[in-house]
C-alpha cells in the first residue's frame, strides 16, 4: 500500500515535470521574450545584452532548471500584456475559480449520482427514459448556450439573478469569497449550475452504465438468489462496486471542471482564471498561458492523488499489502 502511494507520488512528480517542460518551451520559443520586453525596435546590441542578462544564452537544461526554481518560488514571469507579475494576476483570480469549480463539482456529483442510480434501477421507467433523453440533449448542448439560456430566463425575463460578475465578495486574508453576501451567493447560482451541467450528465450516464454492468455480475445474481431485498442489492452491493470506476472517472472530470470554467467564466464575465486564460490566448500573452497550464497541471495531479486515496478506501483488494493495483 505504501509502495502504491509512493508510485502515485512519483508519477505525479513526473507529470508535473512534463507539464512544466511544455510550459517552459512555450515560454521560451513561442513569441519573442526579448521583443516583449524592449519592443520591436531595440538595437541588436541591446537585444544581445538583454539576452545575456536574462540568461537566454545559457544551455537549455540550465534555463529549464532556472525556470523550475523560479516557478517553485512563485515567480512565473511578467505578463506581456499587463506588465505585472503573473503570479499576482493568478493569485487575485484563483479564489473566484476555485469557489466556482468546487461548488459545481459537488453539485454534479450529488445530483449525478442520484439520477444515475435512479435511471439504472428504473431502467425502463418513463421518468428514467425522460431523464436519459434530457441528458443526451444536455451533452449536445454547448456549455455556453446553457449559460446564455439561464441568463435569458433568470436575468432578462425574471430578473432574479445577476447576469455577470461575482457580486459583493468578502475578503478573508488573501482569499475572497462570495458565499458570505447575498449578492455573492446570487451571483454564484447560474455559473455553478452551468458549469455543473455537463459533468452532471456525464456522471449520471457513467453511474447508470456502470451500475447496469454491475447488476449483471454473478455476485449480484447470487445476492438475488439469497433473497436479499432489491433495495439492499442496489445501494449496498451495486452502488459500492459502481463507485470504484466512477470515482476514477469523476476524479478526472474534476480536472475538466477547471477547464470548462474557461467557458463558463467567459459567459458570466466571472473574474476567474479561465477568463484570464482566454484573454491571454486572444492576445498571445505567453507567460500567462504557460502559468495557467502549470496551474491546471497541478490541479490534475492533486486530484489524481486524491482519487488514488479514495480508491484505496473503496477497494479492499488494493489494501492488501501484496496485491498490485489492478486497474
Amino acid at each position, binding site marked *: 500500500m505504501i509502495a502504491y502511494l509512493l508510485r502515485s507520488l512519483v508519477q505525479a512528480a513526473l507529470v508535473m515535470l512534463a507539464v512544466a517542460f511544455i510550459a517552459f518551451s512555450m515560454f521560451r520559443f513561442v513569441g519573442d521574450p526579448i521583443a516583449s520586453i524592449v519592443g520591436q525596435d531595440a538595437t541588436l546590441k541591446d537585444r544581445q545584452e538583454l539576452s545575456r542578462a536574462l540568461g537566454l544564452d545559457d544551455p537549455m537544461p540550465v534555463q529549464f532548471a532556472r525556470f523550475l526554481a523560479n516557478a517553485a518560488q512563485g515567480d512565473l514571469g511578467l505578463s506581456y500584456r499587463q506588465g505585472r507579475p503573473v503570479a499576482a494576476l493568478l493569485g487575485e483570480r484563483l479564489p473566484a475559480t476555485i469557489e466556482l469549480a468546487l461548488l459545481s463539482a459537488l453539485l454534479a456529483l450529488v445530483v449525478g449520482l442520484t439520477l444515475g442510480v435512479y435511471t439504472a434501477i428504473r431502467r425502463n421507467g418513463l421518468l428514467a427514459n425522460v431523464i436519459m433523453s434530457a441528458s443526451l440533449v444536455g451533452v449536445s448542448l454547448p456549455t455556453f448556450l446553457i449559460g446564455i439560456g439561464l441568463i435569458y430566463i433568470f436575468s432578462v425575463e425574471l430578473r432574479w439573478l445577476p447576469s455577470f460578475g461575482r457580486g459583493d465578495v468578502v475578503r478573508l486574508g488573501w482569499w475572497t469569497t462570495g458565499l458570505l453576501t447575498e449578492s455573492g451567493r446570487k451571483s454564484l447560482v447560474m455559473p455553478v449550475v452551468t458549469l455543473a451541467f455537463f459533468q452532471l450528465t456525464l456522471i449520471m450516464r457513467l453511474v447508470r452504465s456502470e451500475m447496469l454492468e454491475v447488476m449483471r*455480475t*454473478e*455476485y449480484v*445474481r*447470487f*445476492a*438475488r*438468489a*439469497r*433473497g*436479499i*431485498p*432489491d433495495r*439492499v442489492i442496489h445501494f*449496498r*452491493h451495486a452502488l*459500492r*462496486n459502481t463507485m*470504484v470506476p466512477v470515482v476514477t472517472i469523476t476524479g478526472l472530470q474534476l480536472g475538466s471542471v477547471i477547464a470548462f470554467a474557461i467557458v463558463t467564466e467567459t459567459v458570466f464575465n466571472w473574474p476567474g482564471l479561465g477568463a484570464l486564460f482566454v484573454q491571454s490566448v486572444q492576445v498571445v500573452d505567453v507567460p500567462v498561458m504557460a502559468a495557467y497550464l502549470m496551474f491546471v497541471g497541478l490541479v490534475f495531479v492533486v486530484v489524481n492523488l486524491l482519487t488514488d486515496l479514495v480508491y484505496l478506501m*473503496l*477497494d*479492499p*483488494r488494493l489494501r*492488501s499489502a501484496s*496485491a498490485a493495483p489492478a486497474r
Partner: protein
Amino acid sequence: MSEPVLSVRDLRVEFVTRRGILKAIDGVSFDIAKGEVLGVVGESGAGKSVTGSAVIGLIDPPGRIAGGEVRLGGQRIDNLSPEAMRRVRGKRIGMIFQDPLTSLNPLYRVGEQLVETIQTHTNLSNAGARKRAIELLAEVGIPAPERRIDGYPHEFSGGMRQRVVIALALCAEPELIIADEPTTALDVSVQAQIISLLKRLGREHGTAIMLVTHDMGVIAETADRVAVMYSGRIAEIGPVRQVVQTPLHPYAKGLMGAIPTLVQSSDDRLVQIPGSMPRLSAIPPGCPFHPRCPHAWDRCSRDRPDPIQHAEHRVACHLYDANDPTAKAHMIHTHAPLEEGVAS
C-alpha cells in the same frame, strides 16, 4: 414416497428475440424428495441452468416462464409476487453458483455477506447473526472461522470460497438447494471435497438438492436420481444406477457411453453420437434428437414423444411406446446393456 419437496410440472421457459420466440425449456416435469439429490445432466444449452433459474424465479427478461407449475412443499411458487418470491429465495431455496470467484461481492468481508443474508431471513441480532455465521463457516469446513469471517473474498482460495458460497446458501436452512455446476470452476482435487460436503449437508439436514452439471462422474457419485436433458426437454429420468448402467434413451446411451465406468469391460466401445445438439432457434419437429438418432424412423420426425414409464425410468422415446407395434423393430441396433435393463 411422501410429498416431494420440489415438484415441477410441464415447465416451459421462453426467450423473446427479434427472430421469434425461442423455447429454452419445453415441458419439463420432475420431483425431488426430501433429502434426495437429483442430478440434471446435459450438454451446455440443453436447459439445465435455465431450469434451475426458473425454479428459483431468476429468469430475467427477455426470458419468461411461459407455462407449467413449480411447487415447493406443495405450494405453488411460480406465480408468486416478486416480493413473495424474494422471501422464498435464500429462505426456502438456496442456490450455489458455478464460479466462486465471481459469486462473492469483492468489496465486502465474507462475514458481512453472511450476516446480511442471515438477517434478511431471520430476526437474529447482529451478535446472534455473527455467531450463526461463524457456525456456518465451521460447518462447511473452513478452519479458524472466527478469524476468517473478517476476511475479504480475495483472501480465500477457490475451494474455500466455494465453501463460503455454500454457507451463504445454507444461511436459512433451505428445504432445497440448487447447485449449478458447483465444481466446474474448481481444481480437480477440490471438486471431490466440495461434492462430499454437499452430500454430507444434504444428508444431515434432509435438504433436497438439485445438482446441475455436465459432469457424469459427479452425478454418478452424488445423485440418487438423474435427469438427462436434451434441447430443453427431459429425455430420460430415473434412479442413478439404472440410468447410468442401463440407459434407455438413445441420447442417454450415447452420453453414458462417453464415460468409462469401472464395471464396464474394457472391450466395450465408447459410443459417440454424431452431430451436435440443435440450436434453440432450429429445434426439429417431433423428437429433437431424431436427426442424430441411430434408431430414428419416420414417426420420430413427426410426433413429439411423451415421457413413458418404463421400469423405473421415464423416457421420452417412441422406441418404448408399447402401443406402437413397429417400435420393437427399430430397436435392432441396440447393444447389450439395454436388454439387461429391459429384462430387470
